[in-house]
């Protein structure tokens, strides 16, 4: 009919007509998918190749690169700042992600209750996520200011001594973790969507079986939500591990390198210290750590996810 003829004529190749239907479909599929394949080759593999080449060079951007063999990789093992940045990023991610997820789940559950003004509340809770990074930085640098900051107003009001949030190396990272809890709009919305996707029937069935509030949560909500939780855990870890702007805009990695995030350290090594080759080596460290982390989460958590049949 019209469809097949247009398909055939538009594709023109005689050889194509002689292929079986499924082979034809396969080619079309490949065609459709080609942009992504090209994309991976151009934007992932190619820069990846450059990154590999860079790792063996010493390059300060303004003069020609010099081949230095394995020097950059060896330096990775003798770099106390790299270790520090791994520690900082690790601790931050380990605390921030679970906290974010727990709180955003609670908020999502709250937002799932039919009360007046739901739209307002949802927007209000999502708002912090859309404040531009720079405005966010000024805001929080002021909130965390020791002498005049909003946070210390509260602390002082309770009668505790003021804390030097951004000056004290023990408090700087917790301060940034606190700041990260403010913009949980994205995981929250995804949880909310997940909650709304739980069929009512299941709760009713549970109720008939005599399940209490907590039992319902534990036996119905959590399992059905588990793929969503898993998704949020993975994306949360990956995104948090790459934290950059908080360190760059607010603390510049201080005090005493207490907030020297890996991404920030890599940026500094490449663009400030003008050691592009070493920066590439650090990038590989970041990639490796991310993958290992993702594998651990996949295997440890992935097996506990309960999948309901969809298609």
């Amino acid at each position, binding site marked *: 009919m019209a469809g097949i003829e247009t398909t055939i004529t538009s594709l023109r190749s005689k050889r194509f007509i002689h292929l079986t239907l499924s082979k034809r479909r396969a080619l079309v599929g490949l065609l459709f998918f080609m942009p992504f394949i090209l994309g991976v080759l151009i934007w992932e593999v190619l820069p990846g190749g450059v990154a590999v080449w860079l790792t063996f060079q010493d390059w300060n951007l303004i003069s020609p690169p010099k081949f230095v063999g394995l020097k950059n990789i060896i330096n990775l093992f003798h770099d106390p700042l790299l270790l520090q940045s791994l520690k900082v990023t690790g601790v931050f991610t380990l605390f921030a992600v679970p906290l974010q997820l727990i709180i955003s789940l609670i908020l999502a559950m709250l937002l799932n209750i039919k009360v007046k003004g739901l739209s307002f509340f949802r927007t209000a809770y999502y708002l912090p996520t859309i404040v531009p990074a720079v*405005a966010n930085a000024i805001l929080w640098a002021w909130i965390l200011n020791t002498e005049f900051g909003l946070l210390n107003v509260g602390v002082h009001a309770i009668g505790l001594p003021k804390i030097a949030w951004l000056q004290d190396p023990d408090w700087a990272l917790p301060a940034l973790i606190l700041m990260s809890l403010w913009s949980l709009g994205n995981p929250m919305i995804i949880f909310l969507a997940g909650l709304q996707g739980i069929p009512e029937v299941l709760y009713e069935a549970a109720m008939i079986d005599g399940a209490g509030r907590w039992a319902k949560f534990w036996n119905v909500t959590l399992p059905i939500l588990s793929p969503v939780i898993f998704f949020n855990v993975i994306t949360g870890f990956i995104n948090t591990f790459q934290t*950059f702007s908080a360190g760059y805009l607010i603390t510049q990695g201080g005090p005493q390198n207490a907030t020297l995030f890996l991404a920030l350290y890599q940026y500094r090594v490449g663009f400030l210290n003008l050691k592009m080759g070493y920066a590439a080596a650090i990038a590989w460290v970041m990639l490796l750590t991310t993958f290992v982390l993702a594998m651990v989460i996949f295997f440890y958590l992935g097996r506990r996810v309960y999948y309901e049949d969809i298609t």
Partner: protein
Amino acid sequence: MSAENPIFLNNKDQPLTSARRWNSERLWKFLVVTLLCVIAFFMLLPFLWLISSSLKLEQRVFLFPPQWIPDPIRWANYLEALTYKPFFLYLRNTMIIVIINEIAIISSSSICGYALARIPFPGRNFWFGVVVVVMMIPYFVLMVPTFIMLSRIGWVNTYLPLTVPYFFGGGAFNVFLFRQFFRTIPTDLSDAARIDGCGEFDIYRRIIMPLSKPAIIVVAIFTFLNTWNSFIEPLLYINNPNMFTVALGLANFRGDPTAYIQWNLLMAASTTMTIPVILIFFAGQRYFIQGVVMSGIKA
């Protein structure tokens, strides 16, 4: 989908009769609303300070204890802030990038996602694995090499690095989203169409996409938010101040420790820049959530 969060029976797990319902439910809702308000207050507090500072005289911004209601209220700050640097220009620049990216991403990722979801081709599962892996690659790993590549071919100081990559698959995350979503559409629909003689592209264009409004909206909103707030890429590639985006325009105060910053104007500019985003979210939130629901973010 669920009308009421059904966890909420009364405390004794007794079904709520109309009498009990009236009392404990009202009480419960009242408590919930109060809690929501308290949390909203904390969520909005920094924002309120932002707005309050934006209306203040320069010297009053950092008074301690903070002055919540500016005295005098200086509406002129907004006019000054938006003309002190050409913020409308930045807005226009950002919108240009946003529109190009929306077109690129929605068309590219949906077609790729469709192929992954509905057209068996050799290596399909392998490529799906690649999609998932690519989603996990940190941006910083490829940032420098990409910059080196693109600066060699003269793409620095153009919008090309910020838009062209999205024509190639539109981002692994979006491909993933569309693929998940398309899998929830019953195959009967496309089978029927195929019997009627539709080619794959027609099925994609006439049947699948119209059914995918929620997914499209989700991707559109995420794309908008990401482009709007994108700070590092424009920072790296755009040097000409007339080409700055909104995020860059706001970031301009950094760098020189000897420079003076007018905080109240900066706050006014920041507040203005969040307004379009708030509007979009407020208007689209229902579709947004629906879209996320139906995309079935289940791995």
